[in-house]
């Protein structure tokens, strides 16, 4: 187990390095820092002086990969690649283009993101599992086909409309909760109810259909027939046999997103004015803040790879048939 873990982490490192190199290439080689400066300072009438100044403030005036005029270690360490890309491995995200400390922002803003993403995940799974189990129990009846049709319909509505519609109906017409905003501590609950509810509802169609397929796959297996021939009730089979076995593939999808929950949801957060990492990223994209976007790309892939490793571990814990080697 421990060996396997080490191997997986070892395998993750080259991937992270290549993600790093890829983003470096995308952000600094495809377009030079000069172009970035020009975009920020307004296009046409920019003096070279202003550009140099902008680059100096953000440390983009260094050479890309190799500082030939310096000596010793500084040849490597005084470059953009080292300062802006390699330091990400130490979680030193540096300063954003507008001069804020990215690490501080991230550590502050990941909690509101989590406060939405975690309830959405948990409530969503419980609700989807229940509905999917219900639909699968009544498989090949009108309840099933109507359920699937409703699911397809719900999948076909853009997530934006769930948010807009929910805000209009609950926030504006019924005035049950504030439309947007956030506050610290327990009073945040009233701000969180609506985004969580909308997050759950907008994922319902897709999730239910997926879980239903998994359940139906299990229902047709031999052990279910055996259980049935032993005289178990259908509801008993569904709850204790099918559900338990179906949880394994379902878990794969859940565990892999667990670490990424910190990143939050881009659109939900920005619509509801929640100061999480999702809205942070959107603000950065809108303000064309490359340092933040670069950090988020790195962080995102790191969390995703972490999720993959966690999935493998949880497999062994849940399913004794799986041996990691």
């Amino acid at each position, binding site marked *: 187990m421990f060996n396997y873990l080490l191997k997986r982490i070892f395998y993750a490192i080259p991937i992270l390095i290549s993600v790093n190199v890829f983003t470096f290439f995308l952000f600094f080689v495809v*377009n030079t820092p000069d*172009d970035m400066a020009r975009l920020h300072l307004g*296009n046409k009438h920019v003096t070279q002086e202003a550009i140099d100044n902008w680059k100096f403030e953000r440390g983009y005036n260094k050479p890309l990969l190799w500082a030939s005029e310096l000596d010793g270690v500084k040849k490597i360490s005084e470059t953009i690649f080292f300062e802006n890309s390699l330091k990400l491995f130490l979680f030193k995200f540096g300063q954003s283009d507008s001069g804020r400390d990215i690490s501080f922002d991230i550590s502050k803003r990941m909690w509101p993101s989590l406060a939405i993403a975690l309830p959405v995940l948990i409530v969503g799974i419980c609700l989807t599992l229940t509905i999917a189990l219900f639909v699968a129990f009544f498989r090949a009846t009108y309840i099933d086909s109507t359920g699937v049709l409703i699911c*397809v319909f719900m*999948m076909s*509505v*853009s997530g934006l409309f769930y948010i807009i519609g929910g805000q209009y109906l609950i926030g504006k017409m019924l005035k049950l909760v504030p439309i947007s905003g956030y506050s610290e501590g327990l009073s945040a609950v009233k701000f969180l109810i609506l985004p969580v509810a909308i997050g759950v509802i907008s994922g319902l169609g897709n999730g239910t259909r997926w879980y239903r397929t998994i359940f139906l796959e299990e229902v047709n297996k031999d052990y279910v027939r055996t259980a049935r021939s032993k005289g178990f009730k259908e509801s008993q089979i569904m709850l204790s046999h099918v559900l338990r076995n179906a949880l394994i593939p379902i878990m794969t999808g859940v565990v892999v997103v667990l670490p990424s929950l910190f990143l939050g949801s881009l*659109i939900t957060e920005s619509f509801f004015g929640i100061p999480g990492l999702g809205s942070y990223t959107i603000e950065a*994209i809108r303000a064309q803040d490359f340092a933040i976007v670069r950090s988020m790309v790195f962080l995102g*892939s790191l969390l995703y790879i972490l999720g993959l490793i966690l999935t493998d571990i949880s497999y062994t814990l849940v399913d004794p048939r799986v041996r990691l080697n």
Partner: protein
Amino acid sequence: MQIVILKTDFLFFLLLAGIFLYSLFVFKDKQLLDVWRQVFRKPLAIASGMVLFFYLAICLLDSIHFKHLANNEKSQEITSVLDSLFEPISKQVETTYSAPFAYSSFVKETILNDDGSVAREFPRLKFGGSHLIDPESDYWPDIWISLIYILCMGFVFWLVLLFIYYFFSYRSRPKSVISFVNVVLVSSGSFKVFWVTLLGFCLLFSFLFVFAGHYHILGTDKVGNDVLYQSFKSIRTGVLIGTLTTLLALPFALIFGVTAGYFGGWIDDVIQFLYTTLSSIPGVLLIAAAALMLEIYMSKHSDIYMSVVARADLRLLALCMIIGITSWTTLCRYVRAETLKLREMDFVAAATALGATKLRVIFRHVTPNLMHLVMITLVLDFSGLVLAEAALSYIDIGVDPSMESWGNMINSARLELAREPVVWWSLGSAFFFMLFLVLAANIFADSTRDAFDPKTND
């Protein structure tokens, strides 16, 4: 008048040609034909297929662009056939909001009367209901007469189509007209669904034809653009993003997938490493990063692209390419797995034994057997991509703001629900136009997948 072929137009025509060639191929292959028959056996699949066909047709009309040269040589204005069909409402005719079917503006304005007095009232629209002499009394009679006219026209149009079909279906023509009517209307099954859906389309077309000439059917937006026209223009954006993305990702996925699967060894390792890396970057962030880079590139080369349309077109293409780069990994994985399976098949061994080169085996024996994967991916990814466009445009990394798209419509209209009184038609139109497309695509995709993959049949 000079025909202009934009880059995305070219790719879309290429796609249509590909679909055409594929259907020729299907009609020759009996087994494949049976699978496709099975797709269309479900009534819902027929209806959704027709809706998809309608959207594709609109997209095609909107993809034939031309330039007017007559009055001004330097004019860079590029318009499409759809624009010409929608004249005059394709031009901005009103000044601000107006409700659907309204004859007066939605916002009160200060009007200077002839005698010099000043009044606050709703001014008449320039286009909507301009044929009404006395709107107060003429409005409702005009609507009712038009509706009756539309019903008649739609039915007549439908009957004409029905009779054309009846007289040209020599081989399977039913004995009498009555038994024909029986087949069309009374029998259950896909044939009836086809004609009922067609009746719906006939009524819709006559509705549009009659009312779009006199009213803004879906109202106008903040600056007075017709919402119906905007929604129709958005169809092209949505359909192109849904299809071209997969089309552009296709070469990567096929080449890498087949090479990795067929040759194995270190090539396989390298390619697997490549797509693991790419797929470990969260899609939205990668798209955002690439879109930012595109922004810089466009602003650096802002002098090259003269016309707004060509510029927006390039941006659309780049967006498709960017999303394609993030999404080819999934297809690549499937292609690789399938190639691994195919490589061990007897017919490949036979071909190799008969002296076929590796390239020949790949092109003649392996790749054709991967086509169903491509088809399914194209159909399955479509709806997700249309929805993604709207979300991306909201974050400002979608299509060009000057380009009509449902995402841009939602983005500019999302604060309208907070107005008093509520302006709902822009959002509502984007909602329904998107819903019909995505719903149809989803239903059609389900049917396709069930037919091609018997395992998921339940």
